[in-house]
């Protein structure tokens, strides 16, 4: 057999010398890292699309439903009120399932990265670990897909009274994730009994990108905690009292047939819902991005890019992680302009994730080629 030339001769210049044994091609760890980053990027992209095309339109539909309910109250039509609230439930389900799909996809991605970290401490055979990783990624994809479809599939063709096929898909995928985690826990228990790691630990890299991600991530999480504490201490109770007060004024205005006042109160209700939503979104996103940065600091040894590009992606990721939550908060003052900038922040995080994913793909591709060359050379010698 003719010799196969190295496809990526410059790869060695950016390859950490001690990382190869810990990250063999097609290993469980590689599946978790690929799948985890891909799930997080897909979840963020879905969230960006949701924020641009669905979120504000859905809020407008909620406002319209409240005005329709108030008109029905003014007309003394209780049956129409119930009909409007049934429709409102449908609008809320549309929004809720999309938010849940976004959250669950990213959550599964985080768990996948976390599982990649703990693989040396899972005392199971390599094929079992690999099968578990494939099952986990499949569950991580099917769970949000099922949740997303709940609103569209409904109870069509379902033999159950209250559960549709999409819910069955989502629940089955959730059960699959629980099963995988249970087997991983059993593997961890086996490790505790033997105290022998089953594969090399992730190499500790003391580079600028790793340190920046670790410190930056911790600071982001801390900022998120401080914002959450501020919101809970100063605004949470006030907002809760305002909601029932606005609804009470809305009902009074509708009963008096004052439709101008109804419109004002519906706008107040929308404003309050917006204020709560942006505070909660800013709090949760900055903490999630902080956790993501910390998790990504562990996989930096396997991002096969030059130091310059690794630094660039870290800066883009941390920049986007600050821009998104800050401009989500500023939406109340600056309106859609801030919303647009926040979406760009989300896009920066996605682009940085894709850049790192490419770096990880470059690494494994190079190793595959090297192994292929070595095995063929061995066969040729025989």
């Amino acid at each position, binding site marked *: 057999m003719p010799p196969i030339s190295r496809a990526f001769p410059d790869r060695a210049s950016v390859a950490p010398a001690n990382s190869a044994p810990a990250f063999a091609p097609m290993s469980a760890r590689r599946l978790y890292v690929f799948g985890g980053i891909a799930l997080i990027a897909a979840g963020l992209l879905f969230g960006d699309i949701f924020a641009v095309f669905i979120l504000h339109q859905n809020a407008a539909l909620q406002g319209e439903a409240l005005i329709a*309910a108030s008109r029905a109250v003014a007309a003394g039509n*209780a049956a129409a009120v119930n009909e409007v609230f049934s429709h409102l439930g449908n609008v809320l389900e549309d929004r809720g399932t999309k938010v849940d799909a976004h959250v669950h996809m990213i959550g599964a991605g985080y768990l996948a990265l976390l599982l990649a970290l703990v693989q040396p401490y899972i005392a199971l055979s390599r094929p079992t670990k690999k099968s578990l990783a494939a099952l986990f990624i499949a569950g991580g994809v099917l769970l949000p897909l099922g949740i997303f479809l709940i609103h569209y599939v409904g109870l069509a063709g379902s033999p159950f009274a209250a559960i549709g096929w999409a819910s069955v898909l989502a629940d089955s995928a959730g059960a699959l994730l629980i099963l995988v985690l249970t087997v991983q826990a059993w593997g961890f228990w086996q490790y505790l009994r033997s105290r022998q790691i089953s594969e090399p630990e992730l190499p500790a890299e003391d580079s600028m990108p790793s340190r920046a991600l670790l410190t930056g991530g911790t600071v982001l999480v801390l900022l998120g905690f401080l914002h959450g504490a501020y919101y809970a201490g100063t605004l949470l109770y006030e907002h809760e009292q305002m909601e029932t007060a606005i609804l009470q004024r809305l009902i009074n205005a509708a009963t008096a047939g004052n439709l101008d006042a109804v419109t004002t109160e519906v706008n107040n209700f929308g404003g309050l819902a917006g204020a709560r939503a942006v505070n909660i979104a800013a709090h949760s996103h900055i903490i999630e991005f902080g956790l993501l940065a910390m998790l990504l600091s562990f996989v930096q040894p396997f991002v096969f890019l030059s130091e310059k590009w690794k630094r660039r992606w870290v800066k883009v990721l941390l920049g986007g992680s600050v821009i998104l939550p800050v401009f989500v908060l500023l939406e109340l003052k600056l309106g859609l302009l801030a919303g647009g900038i926040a979406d760009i922040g989300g896009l920066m995080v996605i682009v940085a994730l894709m850049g790192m994913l490419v770096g990880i793909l470059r690494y494994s591709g190079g190793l595959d080629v090297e192994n292929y060359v070595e095995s063929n050379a061995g066969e040729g010698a025989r």
Partner: protein
Amino acid sequence: MTGSRKLLIFGGMALAAFGMLYGLQYALFVEHQTLDHMGGSLAQSFAAAATRNLGQSQAALEQYGDTKYDYVRQLDAHSHWIGLAMLMIVLGVIFERVNFSEGIRQLVAFSLLAGSALFPLAVILQTYHHGAMVLKALAVVGSGLVIAGLTATAWGFARPRTTA
């Protein structure tokens, strides 16, 4: 594995498992009824107003407010338990990079664990005693312990390496 890492990893895993089990029992036995009750109360409030029964309308609206108060806290406690647990596990993996002596690291780890368990617990207890100052104070103490622990951790990461 050092004591501080054990505390964070095992404490985090136990807290995550507890948070998930709590969420599972809530989703199976409480959540659907709560959501039905919440939506039903609001609809009933408007429907009663349509029939000009303002007393019933107000009572239904108050029920809606109370139910939502409980629902928000149940969900918050569940998500914060699991979220904080994940953070502790991640920190546990790299806690030797926090450049303090092991004694201080154990103190920081204990602060993170205690705060992560206490803060959501105080939030849940508020559903039994709406607006109780003691429980609000407990939640503040819990979140304060987590914030203090994380501040120390960030400082420890940023410090030059002097200890193992």
